[in-house]
């Protein structure tokens, strides 16, 4: 950023569409901001994800391209909705505008564990899981694998028309089947190993949709017990190191995998080479039912154990899981996962996301020192206390949300001016070039929520 660029971005035309409220997250990918649309009314909350600038010599970041191209193809109630893509031409940075989701499973679980000290009610667990599977089933049927499912990537809508609806987010690592895959550690992205499927830990070179189902199993268990099921300590090394401790944690609960139950195990690199003598280790098999405190006869246990099946080919699929008996017995899953339909169930008021209003869209921190960010969290007792810094989308805690009046400083209208002349978009398109093929257009129309203002029409990309 050279001189004056700080004001240049704010001159970009697209910024005028929003009132910026502040930063709500930060990660390896970049920053996330909360904003409100000025039109249409009623205005709605938008999460704006700013991608970290790639090195000049690299051009547009592959992660950004993949995430956007995948999100452009998908429309589903349980997948986060990309409302717009903005290019800031002055510094060629990219901003994605999403429908804002107030909660995520990470925060919901943490709230129950650290604040409420009681488990999440059955209805909520079941509804969250059902919707997660519903979104995942859609992705898989479109031949997409998420590859990085974890509680912080599973969002839940706050109060409003979609209250309590689950949204799968963060497609930075998602892939269309058959596209070549870099080992995850090679693109400089840190992915938590706690939700990683055993076949990957053992060196499988290919991702299948079954890796997502393993992660769902881990998340299901975490919703039940409020703590991560397999909390291994990560080995940090440059090129996809062997994660012995993570496998050890899994084997301790599920027992040793056997060739009998998992025939292709023999072909997996780390198993075959047996460098750390994993084949010879003894495990007592404490039992999954002990870890999650479920009766082996309960449908919940049955479903969970099918998600945590060692052999990826035998592991239950998202579509099959949706048909499982667990979802057919009381309490039945519902659309608003946070508010049980039944009387007598207590409604939990989950905290809203803290907003750091001292950071502008460029990520520069300013404003009075009294408001400086002090509560940068990273050590959650019992959760992320291991040897790694988990890229949390929500790094800033303990900041109350500012009342709307205090946001005047971020109302960018007054600074608005004409966009600069570098806009490649200023090359006019041929008239009458249709947008997308009919199938996609149809899907979008169908998905339009009643009472939910559509942003799609104003799309300029």
């Amino acid at each position, binding site marked *: 950023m050279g001189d004056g660029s700080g004001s240049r971005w704010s001159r970009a035309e697209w910024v005028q569409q929003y009132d910026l409220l502040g930063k709500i997250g930060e990660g390896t990918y970049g920053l996330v901001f909360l904003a409100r649309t000025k039109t249409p009314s009623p205005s709605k909350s938008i999460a704006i994800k700013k991608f970290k600038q790639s090195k000049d010599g690299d*051009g*547009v970041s592959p992660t950004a391209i993949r995430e956007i*191209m995948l999100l452009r193809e998908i429309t589903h109630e349980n997948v986060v909705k990309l409302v717009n893509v903005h290019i800031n031409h002055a510094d060629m940075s990219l901003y994605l505008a999403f429908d804002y989701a107030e909660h995520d499973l990470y925060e919901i679980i943490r709230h129950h564990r650290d604040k409420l000290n009681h488990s999440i009610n059955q209805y909520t667990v079941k509804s969250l899981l059902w919707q997660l599977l519903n979104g995942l089933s859609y992705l898989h049927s479109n031949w997409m694998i998420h590859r990085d499912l974890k509680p912080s990537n599973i969002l839940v809508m706050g109060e409003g028309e979609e209250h309590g609806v689950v949204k799968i987010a963060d497609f930075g690592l998602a892939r269309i089947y058959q596209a070549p895959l870099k080992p995850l550690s090679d693109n400089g992205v840190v992915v938590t190993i706690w939700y990683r499927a055993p076949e990957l830990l053992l060196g499988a070179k290919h991702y*299948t949709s079954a890796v997502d189902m393993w992660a769902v199993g881990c998340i299901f268990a975490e919703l039940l017990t409020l703590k991560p099921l397999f909390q291994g300590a990560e080995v940090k090394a440059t090129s996809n190191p062997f994660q012995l401790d993570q496998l050890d944690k899994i084997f301790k609960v599920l027992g040793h995998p056997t060739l009998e139950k998992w025939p292709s195990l023999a072909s997996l690199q780390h198993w075959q080479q047996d460098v750390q003598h994993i084949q010879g280790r003894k495990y007592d098999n404490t039992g999954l039912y002990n870890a999650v405190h479920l009766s082996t006869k309960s449908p919940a246990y049955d479903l969970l154990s099918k998600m945590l099946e060692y052999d990826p080919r035998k592991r239950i699929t998202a579509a099959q899981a949706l048909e499982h008996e667990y979802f057919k017995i009381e309490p039945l899953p519902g659309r608003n996962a946070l508010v049980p339909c039944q009387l007598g169930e207590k409604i939990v008021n989950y905290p809203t996301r803290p907003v750091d209003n001292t950071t502008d869209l460029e990520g520069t921190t300013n404003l009075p020192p009294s408001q400086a960010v002090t509560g940068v969290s990273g050590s959650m007792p019992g959760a992320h206390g291991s040897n790694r810094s988990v890229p949390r989308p929500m790094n800033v805690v303990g900041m109350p949300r500012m009342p709307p009046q205090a946001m005047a400083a971020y109302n960018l209208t007054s600074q608005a001016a004409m966009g600069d002349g570098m806009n490649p978009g200023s090359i006019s398109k041929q008239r009458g070039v249709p947008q997308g093929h009919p199938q996609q257009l149809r899907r979008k129309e169908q998905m339009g929520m009643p009472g939910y203002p559509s942003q799609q029409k104003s799309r300029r990309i």
Partner: protein
Amino acid sequence: MGSSGTFSLSSLMCEEGEACFFEHLDENPDTIDSLDSPCFVLEDEEEYIEYLLRQETGFGSQNQPFLASDDRSNRNWLRSARVDAIDWIFNSQAKFGFRVETAYISVTYFDRFLSKRSIDESKPWAIQLLSVACLSLAAKIEEQNVPVLSDYPMEEYRFENKVIKNMELMILSTLEWKMGSATPFAYLHYFVGKFCPGSKPQTIITKAIQHIVAMVKDVNLMDQRPSIIASAAILAASDATLTRKGMDLRISVISSCGSLESGDVFFCYNLIQEKRKNEVKTPCSNLMSTQSSSTCVLENPSDTCSGAKRKLSFEDSENCAAQKLHRP
């Protein structure tokens, strides 16, 4: 296409045969590939192909033919510029060891871009910039190891990284970020099994890939659906003497391929045969292919079979718009 030269097609081919379409072998030679990996796709292959075919519906139909212009000189210029660009793309693909699909996808971006925005004769540099950015984008999506922008071999013009990045952004937004182009390659394994049961799939696929690559210069990739190109290439690779009737019979094996227009397949099939006849041991240089008779086939609507789309003429509807290309 077997002879050597700067642009030897056979050297671009995957040696692994069909396997390379369903698994992506790790660079590391001493790793053992997991057995279960290719199978997951094979088990689901039917379903996957149906999905791909569904995605193809509406293919191209909404795009303006980008090579359709009244301005004859610009049309000729653009045609030869496109051939140069394709040579550059495939040469660079070979240089970096990219997969053939990556180069092919770059050309689809190239064609799609030009169907929405035009570039005219006064800006030859823009074609090269477009080629670099298309290949760089395809590599980012398809390849494991992506070179830095400055590593792309530039010929006449050198572009700053910033300029290339800006062009990447322009392509992404022009194509509305729909970068998941289907390619004929995804169909090859499936079609071999269906059209030529009992034959050696590797041999046929390798040949089919050569046919597909050879066709790239002659067919605007916006005009023919990937499944059509794939089936024609497989049929041509397995039997060079098919009649329309014989071909229909082979195609009819596939029930889910109601969308495989046999007229279109036959058109592509003939195009391949035509090209093969003209293959007089010349390295596939750009000069040769602009003059080649298969290009003429495309230009003459009364030639070959009926009903097929032939839109290989140039569009120049927005000269003034393209002026702005200077900006970045």
